[in-house]
C-alpha cells in the first residue's frame, strides 16, 4: 500500500515578518449565493503578484485593518496563481465587513499557508472529491488541477452537496467539469418540486457509487459532521484510512504555528493541516470537545 505524502509549503511571503500582510486589491466580486461571494484579489506589488504560488487546499489570511483577520481557503486554479480567488461566506465580523467592500478596495493578504490536497500522489488512482456547502471552495483548486492533468487520474467523481439547491457552490461549472470526463453528483438535503436532482445527505450518495477500495483516494471538506460520515462510508467501502483526506477547521490567528489556537492534538492545523489523512486524525476524530 502506498503511503501518500502530504505536500506542504512555507509562506512565500516576502516580508521578514510573517505576520505583516501584503496589500491586495479586490478586482472582482461575484455573488454565488445570498450570503456567499467570490472575491478576485490582485497583489499591489508586481513582484509579489508574479512570484506568488500556491498548492490546492492552501489558505490565505485576509486582513481588514480595524476589523481583524480571517483564514480563507484559496478557490482558484493553482495553474494561474496570478488570479487569486476566495469564496467567502458572510459569517463573522471580518467576513461581514468583507461583504460590505466594493471592487477596488484594498485589503491585507498573507500566505499561502497550510498543507495541500495530495494531488500528485493521487495520480494513477480513482479520485472522489466530496464537498459540502462552502467546503467545495478549498477543493476547487484540486478539481482544476485534476482537469489540467486529467490523463493522470482514473475515474474521477465530484460529489457536491448543500442544504438547498440555492446553496450549491459553483453550479454553473458542473457541466464544464463533466466535459473532462468527471462524474459530478449533486445532492441537497431538501428541495421543493422545482428541483429535479438528488435529495439526500452527501454520505448517502456513496450508495450510488461503486468505488474500488483498492485504488480510490478521497478528498473531503465540509461540516465536520458531514466529513465524519463520509469517512464512515468510505471505510465501509474498504478505502484505506491513509487515502481519505479531510480538511479541518479551527480558530486561526497567526497561520504560522505561533498562536496555538488551531491545535488539534499534535497538529497545528495551520501547518500540518488543514488537509490531513484520516489515519492521522482518527484518534481525535470522535472525541467530544477536542
Amino acid at each position: 500500500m502506498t503511503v501518500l505524502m502530504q505536500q506542504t509549503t512555507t509562506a512565500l511571503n516576502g516580508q521578514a515578518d510573517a505576520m505583516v500582510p501584503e496589500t491586495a486589491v479586490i478586482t472582482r466580486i461575484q455573488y454565488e449565493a445570498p450570503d456567499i461571494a467570490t472575491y478576485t484579489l490582485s497583489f499591489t506589488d508586481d513582484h509579489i503578484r508574479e512570484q506568488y504560488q500556491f498548492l490546492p487546499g492552501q489558505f490565505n489570511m485576509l486582513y481588514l485593518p480595524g476589523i481583524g483577520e480571517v483564514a480563507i481557503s484559496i478557490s482558484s486554479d493553482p495553474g494561474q496563481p496570478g488570479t487569486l480567488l476566495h469564496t467567502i461566506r458572510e459569517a463573522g465580523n471580518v467576513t461581514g465587513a468583507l461583504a460590505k467592500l466594493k471592487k477596488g478596495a484594498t485589503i491585507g493578504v498573507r500566505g499561502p499557508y497550510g498543507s495541500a490536497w495530495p494531488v500528485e500522489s493521487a495520480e494513477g488512482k480513482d479520485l472522489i472529491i466530496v464537498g459540502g456547502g462552502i467546503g467545495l471552495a478549498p477543493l476547487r483548486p484540486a478539481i482544476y488541477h485534476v482537469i489540467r492533468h486529467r490523463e493522470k487520474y482514473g475515474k474521477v467523481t465530484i460529489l457536491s452537496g448543500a442544504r438547498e439547491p440555492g446553496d450549491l457552490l459553483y453550479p454553473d461549472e458542473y457541466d464544464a467539469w463533466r466535459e473532462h470526463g468527471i462524474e459530478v453528483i449533486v445532492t441537497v438535503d431538501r428541495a421543493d418540486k422545482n428541483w429535479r436532482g438528488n435529495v439526500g445527505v452527501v454520505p448517502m450518495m456513496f450508495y450510488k457509487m461503486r468505488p474500488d477500495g483498492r485504488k480510490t483516494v478521497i478528498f473531503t471538506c465540509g461540516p465536520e459532521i458531514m466529513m465524519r460520515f463520509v469517512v464512515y462510508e468510505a471505510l465501509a467501502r474498504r478505502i484505506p484510512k491513509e487515502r481519505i483526506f479531510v480538511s479541518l477547521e479551527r480558530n486561526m490567528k497567526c497561520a504560522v504555528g505561533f498562536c496555538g489556537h488551531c491545535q488539534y492534538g499534535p497538529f497545528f492545523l495551520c501547518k500540518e493541516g488543514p488537509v490531513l489523512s484520516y489515519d492521522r486524525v482518527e484518534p481525535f476524530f470522535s472525541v467530544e470537545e477536542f
Partner: protein
Amino acid sequence: MTNSIPMPGKHIVIAKDALQTLFSTLQAANYTLVGPTVREEAIVYEEIGQMDDLPVGWTDEQGPGTYRLEEAGDGRYFNYVVGPHSWKKFLYPPKLTLFSAQQNGDGVEFTANKESPQYAFIGVRGCELAAIAIQDRIFLEGQVTDPHYKKRRERAFILAVNCTQPGETCFCVSMQTGPKVKNGFDLSLTELDESFLLEIGSELGGEMLADCDWRPAGSYELNQSRQLMLDAEMRMGRSLDTADLPEILLDNLDHPRWDEVAERCLSCMNCTLVCPTCFCSDVQDVSDLTGGKTERVRVWDSCFNPDFSHVHGGNLRPNIRARYRQWLTHKLASWEAQFGTLGCVGCGRCITWCPVGIDLTEEAAAIRGGQS
C-alpha cells in the same frame, strides 16, 4: 585577584559586591538590566538599576495556590524560588505591536514594528533556561521565525543562577532541567556564603567581567557549589513520572479525572499565563476613532479563555473539562510530537499560582494511576 578577561568554561570567584561592577559594565554596554526585585509582596522580574534592587535577604514559601514572601535575613541575593513572573514577559511580551496599518485614500500601508530592546537577564534559573530553549523551538526553529522574539533573544545577555533554593511546588529534577544550569548562558552564578562562584558560558560573558576583580575558583568553592546542588536536588517538593506520559494521557481522553478537575478548575487562565513555556496568543486591532490608523497588537492568550476555540457556529470547547484536558495533554503529551520535548520544565508556577491549587503532577499521576 586579577581583572583580565576569563575564557569560556572557566570557573572564577568574585566578591559579592563585585556583582555591581558587572551590572555597571552591562549598563555601559547599553543593556537594560532586568532581574528579581521585591514588589507587591512577591519577588518579580523587572527593570533594576543596581545590586541593591535584588531581593537581598528575602525568600519565599510556596505551596499549591499559595506564595508568601518572607524575610530570611541571611543577606543572600538569590535565596528565593521562582516567582509569578518569567522571562517570557521580556522575550515574548504580554502586549506587543506587530505592525501598524495606515489608510491613505483607497489604499493602506503596513509598517512592521522594528523595536528591539536589549536586555540583560539577571538570575535565570535552570528551569527557566530550559523554558527559554523551549520557546526558542517555537519561535525560532520552525519554518517561520518570529522576528520580535528573535531580536530580543539574540540581543539578550543571560546571567544564570544555580538554584540552591527549590520550592514546595518544584520538580525540575523530574524534568531534568535543574537545579544546576547546563548551558545557554553567558555567565552562571552560584551564591556561596562569602562570594559568588561564576562559570563563564560565552566570550561575551567573559568580556563583561573585564572590570571585575576575580580569581580562579578553588576546590573549596567548587565543592561547596556541588554540595549546594545536591542539597537542592534532595529538597524538591514534587516529582513527575514522565515515562510514557504522552501515550498515557492521549489514551485517556475520556478519563473521569477530567470531570473531577473541572469541578475545581476556575478556567481563570493563571496556569497558562504564569507558565514560562505557554505561547498562545491572540491579536487585537487598536484603532483611533477616525479609523485612519490601526495598530495590530499581539497579546498573551490562553486555552482556558472561552473565546480561544471559537469558530463560526460556536465554541469547540464550551466546558472547562475540555479546556483543562487541552492544556494538560498539550503540555505533557502533544507538545512532544510538536517540538520534540514536553512543554513542562518543572518550575511549579502553575501549581503555586493556581488560585485553587490544582497540581498538574497530581493530575498526571491520577490519570497514570487509574488508566481506563
